[in-house]
């Protein structure tokens, strides 16, 4: 008889326990097979042997609505290029002040581009991969805060996001494994949309440090030059080569149209790390598509142009060998390329799409072309 009240008490305790938050599980996956059509060139991680691993992704998202306007979200992503090792791509808490205003804290995506927030969710866009000339910043998440404000201005929807935080990791810029630290990443991302039209602008700054390792010929050349300059007492010139606590800035402008069955997207980006060996990057793409029921056909042109301002050249006319070394490094960081992609998407199932993209990459400096073909199945569940 005595046991019964205890049992009831335990049950009651269970029922009132906070572990009753509703947890939602969503997922997405992309299985992508691709190869280059040329013998000894590689692009987007593909070479002449077909790979089903390179761009394939599996992911699960867990979100829990805790009480009092608080929610927790985590995204676990397994990428083929990392041998499908599962990693926490996102993990953050969100507090909803009002319907219009929410604050998130944790590990999140930096909203560099229009498709940044769902970069890995192939199902959300028409290409196998977003245009890589533009979508080329070698990291995509940060740890910090994000304040999101949505509002309606007449018939227009406005979304303003302000972020602050940092990034600490290893990225491939010049050398393969450069320890990178971005401090005080701060910026704003504003999107205005009206039914079939949307425009966005984003601007970010960060205190940027990237260690250049001696694991590529360019890396070795850079480090040797920097050391030679430093040893000769040209500290300013050496600092202008190193990427050490330099001001980085990123600007993006974009428009997107989905009118009747006509699709149009364009994005323009500029990325610069002042006083460093990294060239200023200017990129854009324009893409048109046409929807016929469950089919979309599309054509995209991308362009990338990386170069230093001309006033960076001939920084040391008094010391010809070092002057030439600086010029060579600046010249070596130049890049100029374009890509044409033609592709199709077929929504063969309410939550799955089949895509085929053919891309031709042209490097204007080496005057070489590389073709890549990729077939993808993207799903959401």
């Amino acid at each position, binding site marked *: 008889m005595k046991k019964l009240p205890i049992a009831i008490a335990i049950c009651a305790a269970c029922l009132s326990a906070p572990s009753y938050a509703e947890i939602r599980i969503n997922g997405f996956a992309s299985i992508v097979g691709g190869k280059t059509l040329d013998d000894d060139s590689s692009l987007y991680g593909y070479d002449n042997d077909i790979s089903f691993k390179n761009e394939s992704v599996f992911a699960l998202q867990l979100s829990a609505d805790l009480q009092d306007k608080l929610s927790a979200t985590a995204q676990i992503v397994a990428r083929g290029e990392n041998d499908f090792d599962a990693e926490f791509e996102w993990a953050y808490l969100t507090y909803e002040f009002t319907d219009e205003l929410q604050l998130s804290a944790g590990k999140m995506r930096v909203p560099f581009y229009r498709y940044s927030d769902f970069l890995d969710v192939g199902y959300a866009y028409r290409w196998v991969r977003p245009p890589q000339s533009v979508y080329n910043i070698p990291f995509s998440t940060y740890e910090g805060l994000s304040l999101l404000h949505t509002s309606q201005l007449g018939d227009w929807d406005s979304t303003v996001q302000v972020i602050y935080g940092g990034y600490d990791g290893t990225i491939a810029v010049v050398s393969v494994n450069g320890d990178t630290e971005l401090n005080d990443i701060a910026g704003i991302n504003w999107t205005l949309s009206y039914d079939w039209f949307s425009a966005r602008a984003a601007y970010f700054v960060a205190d940027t440090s990237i260690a250049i390792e001696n694991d590529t010929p360019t890396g070795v050349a850079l480090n040797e030059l920097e050391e030679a300059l430093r040893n000769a007492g040209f500290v300013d010139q050496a600092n202008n080569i190193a990427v050490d606590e330099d001001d980085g800035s990123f600007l993006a402008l974009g428009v997107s149209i989905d009118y009747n069955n006509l699709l149009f997207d364009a994005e323009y980006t500029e990325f610069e790390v002042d006083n460093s060996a990294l060239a200023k990057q200017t990129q854009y793409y324009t893409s048109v598509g046409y929807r016929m029921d469950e089919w979309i056909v599309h054509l995209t042109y991308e362009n990338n142009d990386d170069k230093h301002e001309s006033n960076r050249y001939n920084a040391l006319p008094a010391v010809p060998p070092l002057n030439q070394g600086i010029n060579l490094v600046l010249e070596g960081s130049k890049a100029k390329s374009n890509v044409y992609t033609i592709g199709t998407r077929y929504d063969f199932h309410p939550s799955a799409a089949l895509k085929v993209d053919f891309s031709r990459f042209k490097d204007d400096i080496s005057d070489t072309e590389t073709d890549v073909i990729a077939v993808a199945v993207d799903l*959401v569940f």
Partner: protein
Amino acid sequence: MKKLILAGLLSVCSFSVLADIAVIVNANNGNAIDQTEIKKIYLGKSKSFADGTKVNPVNQNGNNVADEFNDKVVGKSSSQLNAYWSKLVFTGKGTPPEKLDNDQAVIDFVSSNADSIGYIDSSKVTDSVKVIATF
């Protein structure tokens, strides 16, 4: 007898093609809601009724009524809507309305939840819910 079957078949056919959609709310809900507002609610852009109550919309699960509603009211195909919601879901910015299996389940849900909104085949409307628009 044959004619009756034929008539029955015809009515079934025309019924599945021409079904009107009734958008319903709880009988005690006094808010005025037009098509633009309904669309905003079903795209997650509007989260509250005019009186400030949080809105709790429900969808139907991949049936003709859902297709008809998506086409007439929201103006998107189910694939487009899936892509739209995947953008919100995987960025933590929104959750699509819960999906119920049929008209009766929607009526039951809407009649017992004061903050709810749903849509059904207009011929299935009962007194337990309030119709705010027909498409």
